[in-house]
């Protein structure tokens, strides 16, 4: 009977140790999983951050290119029409130059407005994302039809 008692007690203790071991093992597994999850979350946030920075850079480059390649030459041409010799020219030529400069400045205004709208469409600002997307689709559709 005493041997049975000793073996039984040892068995009970082993069972208790097994339960505790299982709990520890499971907790370690959960902890490792949580750590991995946290790392993945950090990586995801990093990717989003990089994408955001890259997008901003691309947008800046596009604006710079638009201003340099389109608005710059237009304004320079307008300035050429309105140069200092304009006062020495004939009246008809003066009017022609002023008219051409006005046309170019109008084009420049339109161009700058387009750049501004492409950065922040007024529809998006006033009516929300859904209306802005619908508006963009309609514009694209019209452009394709033309």
């Amino acid at each position, binding site marked *: *009977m*005493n041997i049975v*008692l*000793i073996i*039984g*007690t040892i068995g*009970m*203790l082993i*069972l*208790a*140790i097994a*339960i*505790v071991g299982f*709990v*520890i093992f*499971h*907790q370690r597994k*959960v*902890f490792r999983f*949580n*750590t991995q999850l*946290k790392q993945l*979350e*950090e990586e995801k*946030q990093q990717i*989003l*951050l990089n994408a*955001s920075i890259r997008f901003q850079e691309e947008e800046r480059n596009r604006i710079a290119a638009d201003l340099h390649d389109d608005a710059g030459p237009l304004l320079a041409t307008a300035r050429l029409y309105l140069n200092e010799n304009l006062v020495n020219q004939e009246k008809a030529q003066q009017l022609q130059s002023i008219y051409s400069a006005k046309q170019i400045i109008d084009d420049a205004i339109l161009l700058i407005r387009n750049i501004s709208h492409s950065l*922040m469409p007024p529809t*998006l*600002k006033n009516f*929300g*994302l859904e209306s802005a997307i619908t508006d963009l689709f309609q514009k694209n559709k019209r452009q394709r039809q033309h």
Partner: protein
Amino acid sequence: MFKRNKTKIRRIFFLYAIITSFLVLCSLYFRLIVPSKEGYIIITRFHNICEFIFLSTILSLVIINKLVRKIIILANFSFVIICLVDYFQSTQPTLAYIPLLASCTFFIIIIIFYFFERLKDNSGDIIFSTFPFWFAVALIANFSGNFLLFAYSETTPVKDANFKINYTIIYGTVTFIKNILLCIAVSIKDNNEYYAKVANDNSIIKTEIPINNNKNPINI
């Protein structure tokens, strides 16, 4: 809230340790200095009741489930009644093996439930760096180790010398293991700052970039 609860658990544990020490000294007094079997039995039975109440109180503070907490509180009254009934029904002065068996069974079930609760908790806490875990390990080692011993003690004749030796060896070993584990539990410094830091880190990462929220991009 958690900090206050943690302090309360430790205070109850130290109160339990002081009262247990005092009762052990009293039982030794009745056994060695002024031999009185009746006095020794009463002190031991009183010690069983105190131990049950203190340990169950600590466990009720550790366990989250409210129903189980209520069951633990009710179990205190039930245990006291069982002890009194067992004392008044016993024809000769013996130790309270039936209440001890009942307490062993009760605590093993409650501790397994505590472990089950911890398994379900996915907060990322390191379980073995907390006081309640080592406390539960000490209790489960003590009660599972002594369970068969108490069961056999109830049915074995008191004058079986061989059994007495085995009883002393098993009880002594299990109590030694329990005390070692309780020492570890007391020496553990709950590392809550680490978890708070992890939680803060997560919140910082989530709020750092405003791309994820569902607000209108205009308002960002």
